[in-house]
């Protein structure tokens, strides 16, 4: 089976967010980069499916040249091949992103294309659905369990309060996954070594006109007032009890 998984390079923000002076971007000078946990799980799911079914897995990212780092990381975990749709680093809206992904993979024969449920930075909740629609494939979103029943049939499950919703689907298909579907592995030393020799195809996609145009970013108002320190160590316990009573939870 041929599986594709799509990932997006994003800054790992840590505890404080700083914006650039023009308010257009996060100031990433002191930040590391990563992908969304949903996408880490999508990568893991792709590797497991290929381990169980045979075939091969490909990882794709649209982003700046540096996104090769995130592709390499996925290759180190066990994905066979990478595709980098290289951009100049600016924002691509979800429609433009989906269009570029579709034109890069149209001529390939994937059975399953995996996405994260939403990207960590933009959170548009739509690139996967747009790709599915353009390919004319069925799509299930928010998936937290995926069982392959045969080469053509799968069962996807979504977690909702009180239980699981079941969605049967026929391949080829698009599935967008949520963290929790599996526990992603770490790359092994050997994986890191072999990843260096794996192929990354580099393409320069054409950017179609955006329908959702970012004008700028801003920080939301900080909701909380002054913190009340209740003390140190076990000596704070009487004050904690008093605070719990005051809040009416005790």
């Amino acid at each position, binding site marked *: 089976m041929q599986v594709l998984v799509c990932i997006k390079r994003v800054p790992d923000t840590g505890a404080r967010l700083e914006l650039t002076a023009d308010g257009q971007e996060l100031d990433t000078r002191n930040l590391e980069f990563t992908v969304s946990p949903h996408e880490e799980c999508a990568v893991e799911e792709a590797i497991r499916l290929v381990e169980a079914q045979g075939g091969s897995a490909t990882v794709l990212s649209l982003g700046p040249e540096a996104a090769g780092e995130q592709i390499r990381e996925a290759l180190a975990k066990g994905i066979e091949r990478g595709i980098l749709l290289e951009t100049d680093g600016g924002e691509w809206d979800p429609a433009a992103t989906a269009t570029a992904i579709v034109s890069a993979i149209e001529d390939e024969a994937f059975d399953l294309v995996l996405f994260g449920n939403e990207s960590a930075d933009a959170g548009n909740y*739509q690139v996967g659905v747009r790709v599915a629609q353009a390919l004319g494939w069925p799509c299930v979103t928010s998936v937290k369990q995926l069982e392959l029943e045969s080469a053509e049939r799968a069962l996807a499950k979504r977690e909702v309060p009180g239980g699981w919703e079941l969605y049967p689907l026929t391949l080829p298909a698009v599935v967008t996954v949520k963290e929790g579907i599996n526990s992603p592995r770490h790359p092994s030393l050997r994986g890191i070594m072999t990843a260096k020799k794996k192929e990354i195809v580099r393409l320069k996609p054409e950017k179609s006109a955006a329908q959702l145009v970012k004008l700028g970013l801003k920080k939301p108002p900080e909701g909380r007032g002054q913190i009340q320190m209740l003390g140190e160590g076990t000596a704070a316990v009487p004050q904690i009890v008093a*605070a719990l009573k005051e809040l009416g939870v005790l």
Partner: protein
Amino acid sequence: MIVVWIEDQGGKVTDAVWEALTMGRRLAQQMDQPLAALLAGAPEASGLTDQLKEYGVSRVWLTGDERLARWAPQAQARVLARLIEQERPQVVLAAATDRGNELLAYLAARLQLGLATNCTEVHPGDDFTVTRLRWGGSLLEEARLLSEPKLLTVALHVNAPEPQPAESFQIEQFVAQLEERDFIIQMSKMEESAHEGVSLAEAKVVVGGGRGVGNAEGFKSLEELAQLLGGAVGGSRVATNNGWRPHADQIGQTGAQIAPELYIACGISGAIQHVVGCKGAKNILVINKDPEAPFFARADYGVVGDLREVIPALVEAIRRERGD
């Protein structure tokens, strides 16, 4: 016309629907347009029409199509697409739930339109702009939506529901004309899971643990505390990734969003991706051995100390207090 898609589950709706309707009604007033709603779910949903009127809806469409009782996103998108074709609304919106976001994504893809998800504010006018959540809610984006009609989903728990009855009210049937292929993806059934204790989403008190808890065993004292307070236990991504807690217990950007009276965060540093999951908590008490932990800057109460000493002592004190 402004059309709000109403998400119902067997005739029941959540607050998210009233929040979306409130945003829709304000928008309708600003744009001097009527507010309409589409109820395309189970036939029982028709019982909701009186409430819709209370929220300012003057026209409701019911499909009465039995097949729509089980969730089928493409079929729902088809109904909305037909309604757009027939009524030419200026704006179509839904609550930013899993289903709302999914449905509008299908609609946007089908009609090749832009879609702004998780909007907190909408500014109509020649230049139609929105404010939307990014980074799980830790940043706001101002964005321009170019295509027509405007498609958007309304961020949850941001704008409180506010009823304001409509002056006139009219219920109509909408013939959806759905085909077999619109049901290519449809929920086949629901598997109920065994429910134990209070759920994270509903708990009035949540006790959360992070890396500082150390291991699965370490969560025992947090569980005791939660039980004494009638609450639930949650954790950071470190706690779930290490298998100390099931993933369903994760609080944060890629986990659950909680809104209890009190959140007691133990051994959690306060990374933004965690904090966005507990923004809705009325009060936050942070217990951390590092006085420099960033979470202290976002909390209402703080204790500097080792949770392995503080929590058992607190459990003991509460028991004594209660006389057990």
